[in-house]
């Protein structure tokens, strides 16, 4: 994933080390710098999409509560029908809301419960009848939510953790200069596919040479603050 990890083997040892140091070196390394933690709640509060969703939800909930109050006031307290089959007592909570009679047969349904049963049970049918041909709204909404859950917009990632993992990977990379074996391969006239076996014996030699070059250049091994660009004149 990391570019340096994946393709760093194409660079000379000194150049690779210079880039590695840029990321992991001491306090100045890219992955070692202190970063302010982003509070998840703050991020959510600052996210306009999130607050939009909240306010639209509120607009739905307030009328719902009002309707519930009215329904509760007018419809509670009487039995409206009797289902033509026997039911067990756990259904009491579902079918006899608003009536506090412990002895009443469960087959009798209170008005309030009937209201709720119809409200939720007939929603699909009502949607088909009442809506203007967009009965698929629910599934659309669901899809939208699924998509959001995947992408997590505005949710802050835990960067320190990611950086720590990346740093560990980078520290562990053993630089294997891929260009080292090319010259020999070229002279021997061997094709490129045999690179694994062909480059093995010369890799060590090249690495030694590169280390020597780095030492002579005195440019890569000193732990000093580094910029993205070497500003030399």
């Amino acid at each position, binding site marked *: 994933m990391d570019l340096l990890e994946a393709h760093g083997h194409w*660079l*000379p040892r000194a150049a690779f080390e210079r880039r590695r140091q840029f990321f992991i070196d001491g306090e100045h390394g890219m992955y070692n710098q202190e970063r302010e933690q982003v509070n998840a709640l703050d991020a959510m509060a600052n996210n306009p999409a999130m607050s939009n969703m909240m306010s639209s939800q509120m607009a739905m909930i307030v009328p719902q509560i009002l309707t519930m109050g009215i329904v509760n006031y007018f419809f509670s307290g009487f039995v409206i029908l009797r289902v033509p089959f026997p039911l067990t007592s756990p259904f009491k909570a579902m079918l006899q809301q608003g009536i506090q009679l412990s002895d009443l047969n469960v087959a009798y349904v209170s008005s309030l419960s009937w209201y709720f049963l119809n409200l939720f049970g007939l929603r699909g049918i009502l949607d088909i009848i009442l809506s203007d041909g967009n009965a698929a709204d629910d599934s659309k909404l669901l899809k939208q939510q699924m998509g959001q859950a995947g992408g997590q917009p505005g949710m802050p990632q835990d960067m320190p953790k990611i950086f720590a993992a990346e740093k560990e990977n980078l520290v562990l990379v053993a630089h294997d200069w891929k260009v080292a074996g090319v010259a020999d*391969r070229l002279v021997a006239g061997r094709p490129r596919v045999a690179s694994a076996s062909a480059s093995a014996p010369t890799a060590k030699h*090249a690495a030694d040479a590169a280390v020597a070059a780095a030492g002579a*250049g005195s440019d890569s091994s000193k732990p000093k603050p580094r910029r993205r*660009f070497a*500003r030399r*004149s």
Partner: protein
Amino acid sequence: MSVSPVPSPVAVARATPSAANCMAALAHIRRHELALPADTVAMARVVLPTLSSAANDQWDVLEQVAVAALQTNEMVLASQCIRRLAKKFRDSDRVRILIAMKHEAEGDVQVAVEMYREIIEAKPNSPMAYKRLVAAHKGAGDLTAAANTLATYLETYMTDAEAWAELAELALENGNYGRAAFCYEELILLEPYNYIHHLLYAEVMYTVGTPEKLDIALAYFAQAVELSPHGSPRALTGLLMAAARLGGASSTAAASSAEGPNPAALFKLARDKLRLLYTADAPQMLDSFETMISGLSGSAQ
């Protein structure tokens, strides 16, 4: 230009410049980012009088024609296009960039630079303005400023390979080989299978010319030869020169076979391959090539 039996829309429009053909050609030029400003302006003269406001791509066409007109010094046409765009998009950075480009074309580079700076200050995430700013500096001959602006741009957009290549060229113009080498290293990281990057990196290393850099140059010239489809002549020449500098040209060195990359063997390889190429493609140059080879061998001894 195209290999396919279907003629390119540009060729069709050149042959029969009808409005429909010209629209198709302009779309083709836009999609493939072809540099044909003269053709674009000629087609615009056919298309613009009848450009319907219902066409989906009318604004794209206007922007394209404006840029092409500026490139060919058709200031009246450019002003027309920019005015129509500015009327529709009042507060657009793209239109502002076009206006700045007009200033550039008229020679008021300083005004254009100020405009680009303002756009960048207001919206630091506008790569187009950055690139225009670099181009304006470069056009005005201020290569240091161009390179520094491009470096700032690359701190944000560090995967933009073309920008790295441009910065490398600017650094070479400035004689800043360290920075150029850094850019080519980044390019190798981004596109490790493009032999051009390896080749140019090797050339920078060869130019710097300290012993350890020459070793690296030799390795990367070899790499470029291997990666290029038929052994690029430029890479082979580089290999030849680098091997000669490392003492591969002398006849005494040819006998000793040290471990690792062997300059003598590489010199011989590059010489033979180049000789074949010269014999096949440019026999009249073969004599001067042989003179150069004997000169290299002579100077090494």
